[in-house]
């Protein structure tokens, strides 16, 4: 008899040590269904999929609680190969293809069809030759079934990105007995046309009775393609609903939810009429994984301007482009003067200090002392902390130490002394050193990227409070980039939400959860307006 569900996850709970990342999550998928799995970064989607695939990281950290059933039978996978044998496949976000191999070879990799030869009769199966005709035939069938006309003997190297995605899919459906396919952000790297085509392919696949779990952040795609959807938030199940019975606004609200309860909301989002501090026009930044595809915005003096959005959507790229760390195009005008984006140190010289999200990589010299780190950038760009020694100028250690002591007191950096190496400090204190270094330059505009990532609550509060204080007392303009929407809403005057490398909408902090959710899912302001009104 036919089972009702191809996959049942019941009451899944997973904790890493004390930290519960999934709590009582259930998910049921019927054959031939496209089931969207939604949630912000860190909501628990990946952990759930790791459990489903029996990834080692789950078992190495003490396994999970709850039941996984495939076609009604309870299973407990301990390795990804078990999951594959049970008919579960995955289409990866990063392509797992060998560029030098042909499409057929990639589709059949590890599962090649072979035919006996003279040598194999004597020495065993490993010397059989490849049955290329059969392999090509199978590959052709798989490609045809997803409506891809490309020839199967073409090499993968040099194919357009979209095609690689389809080769991956063809490989998965070529596997015998495949019941369930997981698509992890499949449209993230595709063009609009390719994405539409992919959604059609997904539909074709499900008509064969194969179920699909569709992980994405683009809600419009969910509305177009999925039958049901499940939303996770902070490791908890928010709800499961048929798509027909819900709408964009509701889904968006479910995703963003009450994540700001305890922080409160800063301002009313009115744009002040102060002079413009920085004006960005059509900025493109070529930062791998955080590509920016044309953003424009103005920030006024004395404002705290937030930039939010999901990871990998380009919000971090904006800051790195302005500060000249990654090659950028477009025009940036700071305090009335145009910035030459291709020149290193240009931003610093125009009074723009940048606190990077990559503290240990870009932000600090880990082998040097706190004092050295704090003064270094000002020393190189503004030639301070140097004193004349005969014909040359040398580092003035006394001045450096004094300044460091002031900063340590001001920012409450927990350390033995200014001579301690930065590498031995905790994340929060390292962040304070980064901030101290940026402030030493006496910037007119401070760009902080992910200022609270990976640091403890105490340090987080101190840093956020200090940013507010700086604005109020010194009139400093701040651009704050963060993945934590709650943080942005508690601090900023206006918040730009970035998706797919573009600013979708600039919202006041008191906008509704639905508005934020929609913006983060790349639903533009006009569309969102329609949805919210209806």
């Amino acid at each position: 008899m036919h089972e009702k569900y191809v996959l049942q996850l019941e009451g899944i709970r997973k904790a890493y040590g004390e930290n519960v990342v999934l709590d009582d999550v259930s998910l049921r998928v019927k054959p031939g269904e496209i089931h969207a799995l939604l949630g912000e970064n860190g909501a628990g989607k990946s952990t759930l999929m790791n459990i489903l695939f029996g990834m080692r990281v789950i078992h190495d950290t003490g396994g999970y609680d709850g039941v996984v059933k495939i076609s009604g039978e309870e299973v407990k996978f301990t390795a990804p190969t078990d999951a594959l044998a049970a008919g579960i496949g995955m289409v990866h976000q990063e392509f797992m293809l060998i560029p030098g191999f042909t499409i057929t070879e990639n589709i059949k990799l590890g599962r090649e069809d072979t035919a006996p030869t003279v040598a194999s009769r004597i020495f065993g199966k490993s010397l059989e030759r490849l049955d290329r005709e059969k392999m090509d035939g199978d590959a052709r069938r798989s490609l045809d079934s997803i409506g891809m006309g490309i020839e199967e003997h073409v090499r993968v190297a040099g194919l357009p990105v979209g095609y690689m995605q389809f080769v991956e899919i063809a490989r998965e459906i070529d596997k015998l007995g495949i019941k369930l396919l997981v698509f992890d952000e499949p449209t993230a790297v595709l063009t609009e046309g390719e994405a539409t085509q992919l959604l059609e392919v997904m539909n074709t696949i499900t008509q064969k009775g194969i179920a699909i779990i569709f992980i994405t952040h683009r809600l419009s795609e969910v509305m177009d393609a999925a039958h049901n959807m499940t939303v996770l938030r902070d490791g908890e199940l928010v709800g499961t609903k048929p798509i027909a019975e819900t709408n964009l606004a509701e889904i968006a609200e479910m995703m963003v939810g009450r994540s700001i309860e305890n922080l409160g909301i800063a301002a009313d989002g009115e744009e002040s009429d102060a002079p413009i501090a920085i004006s960005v026009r059509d900025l493109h930044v070529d930062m791998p994984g955080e590509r920016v595809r044309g953003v424009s915005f103005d920030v006024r003096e004395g404002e705290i301007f937030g930039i939010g959005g999901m990871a990998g959507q380009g919000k971090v790229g904006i800051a790195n482009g302005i500060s000249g760390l990654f090659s950028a195009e477009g025009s940036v005008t700071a305090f009335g003067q145009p910035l030459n984006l291709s020149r290193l140190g240009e931003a610093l010289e125009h009074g723009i200090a940048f606190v990077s999200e990559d503290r240990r990589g870009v932000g600090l010299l880990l082998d040097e002392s706190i004092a050295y780190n704090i003064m270094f950038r000002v020393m190189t760009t503004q030639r301070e902390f140097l004193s004349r020694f005969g014909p040359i100028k040398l580092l003035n250690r006394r001045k450096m130490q004094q300044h460091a002591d002031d900063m340590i007191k001001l920012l409450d950096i927990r350390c033995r002394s200014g001579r301690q190496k930065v590498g031995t400090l905790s994340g929060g204190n390292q962040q304070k050193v980064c901030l101290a270094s940026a402030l030493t330059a006496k910037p007119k505009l401070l760009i902080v990227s992910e200022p609270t990532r990976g640091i403890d609550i105490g340090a987080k509060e101190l840093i956020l409070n200090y940013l507010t204080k700086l604005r109020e007392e010194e009139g400093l303009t701040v651009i704050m980039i963060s993945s934590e929407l709650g943080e942005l809403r508690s601090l900023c005057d206006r918040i730009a939400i970035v998706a797919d490398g573009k600013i979708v909408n600039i919202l006041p902090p008191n906008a509704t959860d639905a508005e934020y959710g929609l913006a983060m899912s790349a639903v533009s302001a006009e569309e969102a307006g329609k949805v919210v009104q209806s």
Partner: protein
Amino acid sequence: MSQMTAKNEPSTFVKNVKRLVNDFGLPRLIILTLFILLFVMAGIYDMNLPSFFGDVLRRWGMWGILVLAMVPGIQSGIGPNFGVTVGIVGGLVGAVLSINMNHAGVFDFVTNPALHTIVLALVAIAIGLALAIPMGILYGMLLNRVKGSEMAVSVYVGFSVVNLFNILWATFPVTASILILPATGRGLRQMVNLRDDFGGAFDEPLRFAIGDMTIRPGLLIVFFLACFLMYLFTRSRLGMMMSAAGSNPSYARASGINVEKMRVLGTTISTALGAVGIIIYAQSFGFLQLYLAPLMMGFTVVASVLLGGATVRRARVFDVLLGAFLFNGILTIALPLANTMLPDVPGVPEMLRLIITYGIVLYALSKVKGGR
């Protein structure tokens, strides 16, 4: 309470020893122990310790500037500069030209003999620098194109340059007979005696002896002065920028520093110091060694600085002082000691030298963390 501390004592002791080993570095510790052991043995065998010590000091100054050449290379991020031989051959050309000019009577106007040798040495250094600096810039630009494998490339650059200059030595058009290979009448000799030229230019002035121990303050002053200037450079804005470019290129870039330029700067200074270093080496040694003599010098100086506690990513002037001293100390004492202890086995000190050199380089390479 007292019981608890008593219990904890051994573990804290072990911890302290471990920390000491960590701070000081295992290879340094082993070599230092070996050095002391050799000294004690030399004493037991009733050998002339003061005389040895004088020799150690001399070799310290001889090799010092060549070892110092490692510091700017490592600080700028190209790693230990095995290709310091690029600078060395530049210095050798300077020396050859200076000798040739001397025998043509160009420097006859300097009549004071001590001053005469110094002028000759300085001219050799000046010509050496004039050659080494552009070569260093080119070499640095090459190293910028092979990021990640600078060490392997620098080894082969060193080898290639030494052999390339062999052609030059064999065809060098000089007139001074002291330089020319007598057998063929053209091309340079393998070894040129510097007695009539700049031999001892910095060794001889102020030289004095305490018993059997000869001290050459001139040589050491030159070495220490070079170290002091290098130290000052590391405290200057440019020096700090160069060091940041080496230790964290992304950080440097975010500070508005052109990392590529800094690497070229570090390579050039290193190469230039190679040119200066070989003149100091030759004047103390008394002979100018051409052809394949400089081939493995890169390895010796790399081993010395690593022995002093430098790593392939971090080097200080102090590492140079300590490393050059230990390395040469061991060799100076091991030679006569081995002859006394094992009179029938030839070549023990040479073996020891190679074992230490390659062992240390190997140890340092095994410590290189993957990735950048």
